């Protein structure tokens, strides 16, 4: 490519065809968008599924890393984990400490223990040195409608790849188990859907906006942590099974915005504590780690600054556990 030649050519041209070029750009872009939308429409690709393609990546990862060499640390959890744990930073710290392990952030958006249970056998097969399970109150809410709206699509993309741990069947909620065993045939675009093509820059929000956000979602956050929920049962099963297989687990209560923390009811807080009391030293509580809004991109997710601050903390825990 000879950009210089192009520049020489173009400098000599006048202004006469400017409008033609502008119309040309508009027509060209318009046609390409139409073409693209048409192709998406014809192929019947579901946008929501495309945004959830993380699950496919996750299964690809399990397949790729099935080497059982015990030098990996898996961090699992929801988007809160995706945003809050910066694996390269942790790896750098571990590397500086001469620890021969590599951390992988295996988050899945809106993940719950019930959904993660479907990956238990894969995790065992991969034999990580440590599993860091990042959780928060919503992992144990008794708000089944929430589970239903998000979970019903998750397994459809990896339906034929699911490999259940023997004995885990009874620990799934009936709805999720049905999704797992129901054969599906969905289109899948490996390059993602419309929504996910738009860069999702998460700015730091000010306190007023976060307060508004929490108020707006109050119905959701007023849900109660349920010690008898399917998610709690699945959670216990995951932790106990991994421990029985010789894979150590630690549980991290992720930081949340102070405003959100205030809105958690006493009942939820007490129930959550009851669930965690069982795990004693395995449980690390960082709910109140950050008080300033700059550390959060919204009420529930850490911002870039927050992530950079929080990741070394997780690195220290890993070093402590591994040594």
């Amino acid at each position, binding site marked *: *490519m*000879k*950009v*210089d*030649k*192009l*520049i020489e*050519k*173009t*400098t*000599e*041209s*006048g*202004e*006469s*065809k*400017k*409008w*033609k*070029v*502008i*119309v*040309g*750009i508009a*027509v*060209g*872009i318009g*046609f*390409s*968008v139409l*073409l*693209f939308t048409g*192709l998406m429409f014809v192929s019947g690709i579901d946008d929501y599924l*495309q*945004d959830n*393609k993380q699950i496919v990546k996750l299964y690809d990862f399990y397949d*790729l*890393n099935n*080497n059982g*060499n015990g*030098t990996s640390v898996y961090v699992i959890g929801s988007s809160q984990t995706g945003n809050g744990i910066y694996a*390269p930073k942790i*790896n*750098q710290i571990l*590397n500086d400490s001469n620890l021969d392990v*590599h951390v992988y952030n295996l988050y899945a958006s809106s993940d719950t223990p019930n959904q993660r249970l479907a990956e238990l056998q894969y995790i065992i097969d991969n034999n990580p040195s440590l599993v860091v399970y990042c959780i928060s109150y919503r992992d144990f809410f008794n708000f089944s409608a929430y589970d239903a709206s998000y979970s019903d699509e998750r397994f459809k993309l990896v339906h034929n790849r699911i490999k259940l741990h023997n004995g885990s069947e009874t620990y799934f909620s009936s709805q999720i188990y049905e999704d797992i065993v129901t054969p599906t045939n969905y289109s899948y675009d490996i*390059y*993602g*859907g419309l929504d*996910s*093509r*738009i*860069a*999702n*820059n998460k700015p730091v929000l000010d306190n007023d906006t976060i307060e508004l956000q929490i108020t707006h979602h109050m119905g959701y956050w007023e849900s109660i942590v349920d010690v008898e929920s399917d998610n709690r049962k699945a959670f216990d099963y995951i932790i106990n099974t991994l421990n029985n297989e010789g894979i150590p687990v630690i549980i991290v209560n992720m930081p949340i915005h102070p405003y959100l923390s205030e809105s958690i009811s006493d009942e939820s807080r007490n129930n959550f504590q009851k669930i965690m009391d069982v795990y004693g030293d395995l449980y690390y509580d960082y709910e109140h780690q950050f008080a300033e809004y700059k550390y959060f991109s919204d009420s529930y997710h850490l911002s870039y600054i927050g992530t*950079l601050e929080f990741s070394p903390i997780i690195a220290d825990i890993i070093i402590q556990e591994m040594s």
Partner: protein
Amino acid sequence: MMFTTPEFFIFLVIVILLIELIRKRLWQQIILLIASYYFYWCSSSIHILLLIFVTLASYLCGWKIWKSETLKRKRIWLAVGTIIPLAVLAYFKYIDFGITQINNVLGFFSPGASIPLLEVLLPVGVSFFTFQALSYVFDIYLGKIEHEGKFYRYALFIAFFPALVAGPIVRASEFLPQLKSKICITGANLQAGVTLIIWGLFKKMVIADNIGKYVDIVYANPSGYPSLYVIAATILFGIQIYCDFSGYANIAIGVGRIFGFKIPENFDMPYFTRNIQIFWRKWHMTLSRFIHDYVYIPLGGNRKGHLRTYVNLFASMVICGFWHGAAWTFVIWGAYHGIMLLLHRYFVGERKWGASLKFLDSNPAVFVKVLITQALVFFGWMIFRANSLSDLMTCVQKIIFFDFQFSGAMKVAVVGGILMVLVCFVLSFNKKIVELVKKIIFFDYMGYFSSQKVQYWVIYIVVFVALILLLAPPETPEFIYFAF
């Protein structure tokens, strides 16, 4: 705000409209300056103060050098004008690296002792705008340019948004004279600019970003992959970094072109070069000439004897490597290229090895030379890409002690690749075929597309924009050179 986001294109359209509506040169330049600062604010928020500080400081030093009547005073202001941008660069880019090295030494003598890291966030594009500021101060000192009387023009030179965060590194002598005329958005410039922008987006979003996913997986844990994967990932990284960076340069040049500015080219088919010296004339050309003019030549260039020439060459390349980032891998990468340039200079430049062998200029020999040069360049990319020194050692071990672990598909790929190279080698004996291939490779595609009638040019837009929409991965990573 990245070049690949919808926000950028909305921003660009607004700036173009404003420039088109305001016909006065002064206001056009002020609008561009405000737009550039807004662009930087969106990319790096509060670090905009740093950009303003470097602009003010270098402008003042340039003015002082210009005004000074004695050489001594000129030198004092040159020193000040050099130290300020370099100090900014050193603090924001290298301070934590320096502390880490001190801690390593401290840890050796007294375990447990360490200085806490400052965890300074790297301002986007700091390496680029500080270098532009340095070039201004140096050029005034060397008498190549005059002091720019209008501060806003100088500020626009430093902050001009297309080249602000990842180059090309524009010299004051190239840019400032262009501000003497009114900005006139013509049809031809618009067509040429948009052609380049779309091509740059295609290279970045379709080629580089799709390749990057696989490179990242292997380089995240090289010990977990067979040798062939490490080699494949290194080759892919070579393609990724070229498409990423030259894609950015195409977009920057294209945006500049829309406003009628000439931004210098940064790449000229570097992977088709036959020796390492030519490679560096065609790879990141604006950095290479900066290092040549402001590091190699002031160090003495080739004017102070053989030994000193080699030392200067090596030192320049180490500095070039270190410019890319605060890590030993970059220093080693720079030193590696320094040694290669040094060996080339000694054996080919001075000892004239092979100069009398005519067959070395034949097409098959040139083909082999290109292959060897690029193998060395791509080995360098492995040093550049490794996340740490230990990862680098792992990668080198993987290549030296090749493990011969091939999956079925990989066997086919390797055999296919070797066969292709052999076929190309055999074909290179035929002069007509070689000429045809050269024409295809070096054809001026951008010039061709942008000189087409608009009704045909639209086809180019439709095809490439549709390909970008269809094939670009959903999450576009930052341009690699944003981190430098």
